[in-house]
């Protein structure tokens, strides 16, 4: 019993702490593997997803509408014009270091651009691409 308590405390403290993109990717991989046994993240699939035109939203039909074709570059919000720091970890070390923040933005942006929540597998692939792109 005590081990379970310690373990959950550890998990809670881990969730509140800054993490690496690899750890965040692993959270989604673990989640995806529940639905799809043996799932592994693929940066290539993440890249294709990033460039996929969903066309739900006129102003932001695709991720690149705001984040540009090259995630190593700074983007610009398609509506407000505000500058957006690069999504790629190689260009912006702050990306994918806060699980709550990552989850919040997947929540908002998937709904807005794709018209539905993203699946854990899509999120894992996306994080893999953004972590690996150079």
């Amino acid at each position, binding site marked *: 019993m005590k081990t379970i308590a310690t373990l959950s405390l550890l998990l809670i403290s881990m969730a509140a702490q800054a993490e690496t993109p690899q750890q965040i990717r692993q959270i989604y991989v673990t989640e995806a593997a529940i639905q799809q046994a043996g799932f592994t993240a693929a940066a290539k699939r993440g890249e294709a997803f990033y460039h996929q035109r969903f066309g739900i939203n006129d*102003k932001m039909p695709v991720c690149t509408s705001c984040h540009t074709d090259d995630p190593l570059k700074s983007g*610009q*919000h398609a*509506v*407000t*014009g*505000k*500058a957006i720091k690069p999504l790629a970890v190689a260009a912006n070390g702050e990306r994918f270091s806060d699980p709550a923040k990552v989850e919040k933005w997947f929540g*908002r942006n998937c*709904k*807005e651009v794709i018209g539905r929540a993203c699946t854990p597998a899509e999120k894992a692939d996306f994080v893999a691409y953004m972590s690996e792109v150079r």
Partner: protein
Amino acid sequence: MKFLIPLAFLAMALPALADRMPLPANTPASFKAECGSCHLAYPPALLAAKDWKSTMAGLSDHFGSDAAVDAKSGQEIAAFLERNAGNAAKLGNAGSPPRITLSARFVRKHDEVPAKFWRDPRIKSAANCEACHRDATKGGFSERDIIIPELRH
């Protein structure tokens, strides 16, 4: 003692005269994080309290975007905005849903800006304060600090 009164009036008038609207020191971090990601964390003085109230009540459809925040942040941000809101009489009607850029004061302050500037891809939207006001993030909206040379007086 008497000299303190005009001095106090002067102190109140100065920020308005200089177009300085820095965020208060006790601005909650949630305001900067939630309201400063997609657009500038706008100075609360740019809308009246009733307009902030209706903005905060409609975040799930915020000009076409879902900008909903958790309950705790929502209360914290709403209280902050209403506490530091602008003078309704000076700002004028901001429409419904309220838009800073439709408030009479904003319109009057920008009436010399030609339409082609608003369409410039570097500006994109009247909501993009920083495109022209380079000190906007620090609350600086002085006409002397306009980036685009043609717009400088």
